[in-house]
């Protein structure tokens, strides 16, 4: 049932080498694009395909490309955001390590479409071995004439540069990434101006996720309409989901957008169900920053319909009963997991990763972490829950970049859906701080 667009050849031995990848039909899209298509035609195909940014925000890629300013005499840049650091997300890592040439092919096509002669892959610093794989693959592609000067005799030059990051989560935010790429401190910039107007070195820049760029070779080969035929509504194509947590088969799965959440969790093809003897308690559907949902809301919408793995269906009901597809970091919790501890853990991450530039995020993330720590370790006060809600609401939307929102949403949603559990921690500090103690009160387990 599932179409394999990205991971079709992932199991072929030696696919990370140029020759094997070429034998499987690799780089035909580059040939087709550069020899037979105009840049505008490629942008048009991508627009038709309706690919939505796979990095988390879900902004349509074709639209982003068409916003790129094209002043005369100013270079344009394409930057691939491979700084995947969202807790629970490991799809880009998987894609780059196994299929480096797929990304490179996508980068060549996209750079050609945007008219960029120098493109960057910003990889998070912890993935040094992936950087080596990518550099090896780039050298191979260059040797075969797919990169460098005069690609395939077309007169188009492209240099591809792999840049390791310093390992900061904030550098996954596009403007912070650009600052970091310029060699500065990775502080997000104020927007506007957007990178499409003033990006890297103040030149027009497009920043795209690894997975988004990797889809372009399939789109060029098969056409944007064929891509748009997969999926439901405005959620077109396939998506890599990194499934983890208390499931039988954690891993990266490529799904057609539109698979019901229930099927994704319980079907043997994908997660294979909750681990034996346990029940489904909560779900983080798109990486740690999206709101957490209790099992019943994760599987069904308010009106009783099945919730689907699409951008729209997951956010159905707003933040009251919905969440987001985000980056596809699918974390499943069973009834042995303590939501308070988990929220504290997420909060600790955001406290550690806040860049410290704007005050609500710098001070607020630390405060939330300390209050959650207090509740988790049995020193919570009755007013702490309301305090957390208030602090989260004062961070959300008032910061320069979305990290503030990302830090506030998990806390606000955990309290919205699991308030009893927080209350139990505050009311029964001795019981709650026993090793392995978990709230066993009333809740919707599936």
């Amino acid at each position: 049932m599932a179409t394999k667009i990205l991971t079709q050849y992932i199991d072929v031995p030696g696919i990370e080498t140029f020759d094997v990848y070429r034998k499987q039909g690799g780089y035909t899209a580059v040939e087709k694009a550069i020899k037979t298509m105009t840049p505008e035609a490629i942008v048009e195909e991508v627009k038709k395909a309706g690919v939505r940014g796979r990095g988390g925000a879900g902004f349509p890629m074709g639209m982003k490309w068409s916003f790129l300013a094209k002043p005369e005499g100013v270079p344009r840049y394409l930057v691939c955001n491979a700084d995947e650091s969202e807790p629970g997300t490991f799809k880009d890592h998987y894609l780059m390590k196994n299929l480096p040439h797929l990304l490179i092919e996508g980068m060549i096509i996209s750079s050609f479409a945007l008219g960029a002669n120098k493109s960057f892959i910003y990889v998070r610093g912890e993935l040094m071995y992936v950087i080596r794989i990518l550099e090896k693959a780039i050298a191979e592609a260059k040797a075969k004439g797919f990169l460098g000067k005069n690609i395939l005799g077309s007169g188009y030059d492209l240099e591809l540069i792999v840049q390791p990051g310093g390992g900061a989560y904030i550098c996954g935010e596009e403007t912070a990434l650009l600052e970091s790429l310029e060699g500065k401190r990775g502080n997000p910039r104020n927007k506007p101006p957007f990178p499409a107007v003033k990006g890297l070195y103040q030149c027009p820049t497009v920043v795209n996720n690894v997975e988004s760029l990797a889809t372009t070779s399939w789109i060029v080969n098969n056409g944007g309409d064929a891509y748009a035929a997969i999926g439901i509504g405005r959620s077109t194509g396939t998506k890599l989901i990194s499934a983890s947590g208390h499931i039988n088969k954690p891993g990266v799965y490529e799904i057609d957008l539109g698979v019901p959440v229930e099927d994704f969790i319980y079907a043997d093809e994908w997660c294979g169900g909750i681990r034996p003897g346990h029940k489904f308690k909560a779900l983080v559907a798109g990486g740690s920053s999206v709101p957490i949902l209790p099992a019943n809301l994760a599987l069904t919408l308010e009106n009783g319909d099945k919730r689907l793995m699409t951008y729209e269906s997951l956010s159905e009901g707003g933040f009251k009963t919905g969440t987001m597809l985000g980056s596809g970091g699918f974390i499943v919790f069973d009834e042995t997991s303590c939501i308070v501890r988990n929220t504290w853990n997420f909060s600790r991450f955001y406290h550690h990763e806040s860049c410290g530039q704007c005050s609500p995020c710098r001070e607020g993330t630390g405060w939330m972490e300390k209050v959650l720590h207090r509740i988790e370790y049995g020193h919570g006060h009755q007013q702490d829950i309301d305090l957390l809600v208030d602090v989260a609401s004062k961070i959300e939307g008032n910061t320069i970049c979305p990290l503030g929102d990302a830090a506030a949403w998990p806390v606000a949603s955990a309290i919205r859906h699991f308030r009893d559990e927080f209350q139990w921690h505050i009311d029964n500090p001795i019981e709650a701080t026993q090793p392995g103690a978990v709230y066993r009160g009333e809740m919707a387990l599936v």
Partner: protein
Amino acid sequence: MEDTKPQLLKVTIDGIDVEVEPGTTILQAARKIGPAVSPPAMCYYEPLKGSGGKCRACLVRVAAGSAKDPRPMPKLVASCLTAVQDGMVVENETNPQVIEARNGVVEFLLLNHPLDCPVCDQAGECDLQNFAFDHGKVTTRYEEDRRTFEKQDIGPYIQLHMTRCILCYRCVYTADQITNKRVHGVLGRGDASEIGTYIEKAIDNDFSGNVIDVCPVGALTDKTYRFKNRVWFSKPVDAHRNCPTCSGKVTLWYRGEEVIRVTARKNEWSEVTEFICNTCRFDTKKTSDWTIEGPTKISRSSVISANKYRADAIKPSFGQRLAAAEYKEIPDERDTSQLGIEPLPPERFAKTLPSAMAPEP
């Protein structure tokens, strides 16, 4: 005749219309109207390019984006960086959401800021103090320990109190833009970020002292002036001298006959108008070195100007305003003629609340 002037844009801020040139930010437009509608700014500093956007104190709501596209902006925006559009409608103090956000920002800034105003040299001319006075709460909800830092010595003239820093980055921009070489910057990340020189090193150049003036709080203070005085006991006087390195236009702060401090001149938004050199600031503290121009005009309500220069510039406190609003003469029909008490003339009541009864400046 051709219209050579750029067309002015009309903006409405808190119901007051103002016409400004294209490219003006909301904050500048509000400042044009006056202090009553200006959002507070803790990090934005007009003379410094690129400053602003960090403290989030100046957040405002844009109720209508422009005349062409009158949709409201979805989030609160930083007024110091958002350029105005023709027909923009901005809500500043009239919007409860903005006030709420601002109260939040004060609370966040004060979480880790030591409440040591009584021993802090900046007290009385501190932006954070003013901001907290307008938007802060009396109590804190923060129970944990405040963050502390290792002490860093950054030279003989400037004292760095990192605990008081609110990371506005003004001193970093100052060093970048008015000196040749910046040796200090922001180290670390999140709430562990601090101003420092990495390898402990003196900030040593002719204009280093200006970071003291731009600091909105008491994080960077003058070592030659520390603990000598409270700012409201000193009298600011404008003076100049023929200085080979800078404009030489300064403010001298007198206590009695003695010049106890020299600073750059500041405008009504506490922004330095002309940066001065270290020789003027630290080494020339004799009246004979200077040509006195006259008392500094402090137009903004401040403890420095209190009871000194312009009584009318003192903004009535909230309590006074409330008292004035709620003041009602109680009809006293008792016959006091027998008691030998002169009835209090009505203007005496008014005198007890002089500034409160007057309309807001």
